[in-house]
């Protein structure tokens, strides 16, 4: 009896994971059909790659926030590392490797590994902290990464690479030289390798890595530390090792998203908008609204919350009005006695259903 239960449960998680993969593939097919039929506005079409970027970021951040239980506010920083590492790589080898797919694959690997390295470097000091303190320090690291990238000048000529943190002139390039990273002006002319198909493939790879990681010995160790650190130590699970592992895998995948992001733009600059605090918060909102620890939820939330503002653009004038009404309604619903009574009733209803199912 118990064995049967276990088998059913196992297939239940597998089934749920297959639904997640299936959802992404079906979404791809539908969008592709609409694209072929020319039924997608250029606005939405331009949004497809960023959408994939957001999904990857949300899924990877869920590994840190939901599975490892650490509130990280510096996720955009790792994305920034991946974006610049990948773009630099592509720009340097643009004329060496003309085969786009190979070059982009290598760029993704380079970007991912660089972000993983930064994940480890940042993780070692940061993961000694807990809760709010960890959130504050990751936030700081995210900003530091962005600001450091903003002052880097990187050039290349026949003598090799030159780096400076002052200006292009101090690079001392020869006549044949070329500036790759131009400080705050970033990288211009990265090959436009990102496509919607690439985005979908990378989403599937990210899902594969994260879902399999969670449902393995390593994932169990990470979640046991999240649930009770002292008990995890008492049964011989190394807290430092698994926390760092989760953090750096999460950072690495953010790097992957960064590479995808960078190869979708003509000019890559590190602005507060794309790699700053705002971006980190946006990703966190995807994770929280999708459900902390819920991978499929992250995917859905990222898609819905990116598309919704675009689709509701017609209501732009009323946005603040609707926002205020929702806010007031929420306050009334959560804190007034009447609202609480309704909540209780809803809760009871669901509980009854759950017990019936069981």
């Amino acid at each position, binding site marked *: 009896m118990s064995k049967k239960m276990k088998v059913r449960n196992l297939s239940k998680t597998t089934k749920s994971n297959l639904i997640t993969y299936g959802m992404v593939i079906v979404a791809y097919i539908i969008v592709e059909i609409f694209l072929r039929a020319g039924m997608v506005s250029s606005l939405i079409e331009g949004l497809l790659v960023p959408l994939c970027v957001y999904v990857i970021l949300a899924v990877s951040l869920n590994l840190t926030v939901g599975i490892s239980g650490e509130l990280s506010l510096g996720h955009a920083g790792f994305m920034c590392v991946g974006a610049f590492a990948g773009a630099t790589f592509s720009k340097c080898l643009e004329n060496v490797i003309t085969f786009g797919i190979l070059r982009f694959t290598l760029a993704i690997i380079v970007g991912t590994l660089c972000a993983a390295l930064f994940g480890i470097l940042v993780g070692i000091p940061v993961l000694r902290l807990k809760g709010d303190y960890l959130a504050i320090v990751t936030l700081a690291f995210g900003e530091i990464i962005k600001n450091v990238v903003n002052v880097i000048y990187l050039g290349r000529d026949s003598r090799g690479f030159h780096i400076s943190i002052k200006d292009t002139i101090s690079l001392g390039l020869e006549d044949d030289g070329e500036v790759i990273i131009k400080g705050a002006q970033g990288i211009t002319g990265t090959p436009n390798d990102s496509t919607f198909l690439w985005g979908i493939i990378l989403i599937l790879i990210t899902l594969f890595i994260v879902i*399999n990681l969670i449902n*393995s*010995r390593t994932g169990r160790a990470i979640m046991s530390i999240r649930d009770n650190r002292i008990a995890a130590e008492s*049964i011989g699970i190394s807290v430092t090792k698994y926390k760092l592992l989760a953090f750096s895998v999460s950072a690495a995948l953010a790097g992957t998203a960064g590479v995808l992001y960078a190869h979708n733009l003509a000019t890559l600059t590190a602005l507060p908008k794309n790699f700053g605090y705002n971006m980190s918060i946006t990703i966190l909102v995807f994770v929280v609204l999708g459900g902390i620890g819920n991978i499929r939820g992250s995917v859905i939330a990222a898609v819905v919350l990116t598309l919704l503002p675009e689709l509701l653009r017609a209501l732009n004038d009323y946005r603040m009005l609707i926002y205020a009404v929702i806010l007031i309604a929420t306050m009334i619903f959560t804190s007034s006695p009447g609202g609480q009574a309704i909540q209780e009733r809803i809760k009871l209803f669901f509980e009854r259903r759950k017990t019936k199912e069981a």
Partner: protein
Amino acid sequence: MALLEVKNLGISFGGLRAVDDFNLTIEQGELYGLIGPNGAGKTTIFNLLTGVYKPTDGYIMLDGENITGKKTIEINRHGVARTFQNIRLFNELTVLDNVKAGLHNHHPYSTLTGILRLPKYYRVEKEMNERAMELLKVFGLEQEADYKASNLPYGQQRKLEIARALATDPKLLLLDEPAAGMNPNETQELMKTIRFVRDEFHMTILLIEHDMKLVSGICERLTVLNFGQVLAEGETTEVLNDPKVIAAYLGE
């Protein structure tokens, strides 16, 4: 040779001497009790034995190896497992996964094997499932394997904690107030389980307990602690009839 030998163990927190000159010898297969009034330092001794605190003086020998001042995870690998006074389960994990977490170091495979789902992953996970179900069966929890740990009733949570500790295949099992919050029936059942664990796994068990029925029922020897110092030690019946112990702890 004794399985556990503790000599002159002591720890100070600033000016407070929480445990002083503590000696303890437990033989293989023994069921040993550690009792005393609240704040006597019993849990502190558990924390010293499991490496949560580093002792200021003295040493701890386990099965001939010096484990003094080692880290918690190393001490667990040497063969000490414990439960906690306030239950510490992995609440969001299933009952089965709680035990499987305990098997972590005994059925290893790499993270990459797990992500890529290599054949070894399936083989080792199957071993883990079987072993974990065996352990759950011992505690009558096999029907609840898929429940979230936090959804278990209190008594079963205590049992699950013991099952998880046993999953690490320890030589010495430390139980911190296993009967706390249990009703008399549950305590009776727990006593049976503890005795069963000792006989079935040939386990050496050291337990802290306030329930004198449980202590006198299953412990073979006792140490009584008071203000961080040993007040009495020896055979259970002798110790419980010791006038000093009655005055300090049991009451007339």
